[in-house]
């Protein structure tokens, strides 16, 4: 199996069909063992918390209702977020598609004269194919899951660890 097969192309237009793309992963026993272990650990933790609650099914339904409401009124909440984020000193950028989002991010990096960037691992950045785009534009990218730990360190550390504009 070629090494490229382990880095599947995420662009739906370029990616091989799922049943084919999945084969190298399926035939990787270490990866499957790791994923199975991760699932077992997460499920066991979840099971422990569920067992503590007598009304978890109701909580779950309430959570689903909140999510559905947020999705149905996404426009309103996005604008509300922009308003509050701006008031708190943040800048919200709006992009109509993946290409525009990539351009905005590159422009910000150019303004900082950045040749390297540490970025949070997010599904959104994977979906808009941000990393290959930045690499092609000469910006070395480093991905991290550190955001979670930094969030738990509190506001101050969040600011010191991260350039706000790259968040």
């Amino acid at each position, binding site marked *: 199996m070629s090494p490229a097969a382990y880095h599947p192309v995420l662009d739906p237009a370029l990616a091989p069909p799922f049943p084919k793309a*999945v084969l190298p992963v399926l035939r990787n026993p270490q990866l499957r063992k790791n994923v199975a272990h991760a699932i077992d650990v997460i499920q066991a933790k979840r099971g422990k918390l569920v067992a503590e609650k007598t009304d978890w099914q109701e909580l779950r339904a309430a959570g689903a209702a909140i999510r559905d409401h947020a999705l149905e009124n996404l426009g309103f909440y996005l604008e509300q977020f922009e308003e509050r984020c701006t008031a708190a000193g943040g800048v919200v950028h709006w992009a109509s598609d993946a290409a525009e989002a990539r351009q905005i991010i590159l422009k910000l990096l150019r303004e900082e004269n950045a040749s390297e960037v540490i970025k949070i691992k997010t599904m959104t950045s994977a979906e808009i194919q941000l990393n290959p785009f930045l690499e092609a534009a000469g910006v070395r990218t480093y991905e991290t899951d550190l955001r979670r730990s930094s969030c738990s360190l509190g506001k101050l550390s969040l600011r010191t660890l991260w350039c706000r504009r790259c968040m």
Partner: protein
Amino acid sequence: MRVSLFITCYNDTLFPETGRAVVKLLERLGVEIDFHPQQTCCGQMHANTGFRAEAFSQAKRFVRLYQETETVVIPSSSCVAMIRDQYPGLFEELGNEDLRKQFAALLPRVYELSEFLVDRLKVEDVGAYFPHRVTYHASCHGLRALHLGDRPWRLMDKVRGMEQVALANLDRCCGFGGTFSVKNAEVSSAMLAVKLQDVMATGAEFCTALDNSCLMHLGGAMHRQYAGMKTIHLAEILASTESSPAEGLA
């Protein structure tokens, strides 16, 4: 009480013993059964693979056949989930207001077998006898779409002679997923292999469920591995009595 039995294409073509067991069980409970020989399939396979026109025709047929029926009983969570979750969208798309209203009126009278027994007939002890070690597999559609909850256990707990063995990771899919098992055979088989480990670890004689589709997937693997375990639809266990055991065991 009078019910109409929608047996589903799957049970009809592959598991006729399940259909016979449902009839035996319901008749023993004093239920009169109607059967429309014109019935075919709920259309899930068509809807899930993009054959909208074919799904529409099955959905329309279902409403046409059962609109006068007091209660429809279906021994397959998957097909009930199709009717409950997907039909509303199909009828919406069709844009025929009369049909949509007919369906909306019919829907509350459509029951999955365990729902029918526990909720409608209000019976948990169906007088069954099944002297075997059994593990129960909770199908995705029963668990996540219909929210069957503890209904299957309420029924199983009253089966005389039966020893239940809890299945680990009960909420995990067996990997079948209808046409998924054809289109993504490798992933489907990988999921099956994981599921089968838990199922075999129970050491049960039988693995039961309320969906023969999962049981076909699991049973196929058991058969090929020469496993000492068999699959059986819960209806067949519930229909089984001392004097009239489940088919194949007599």
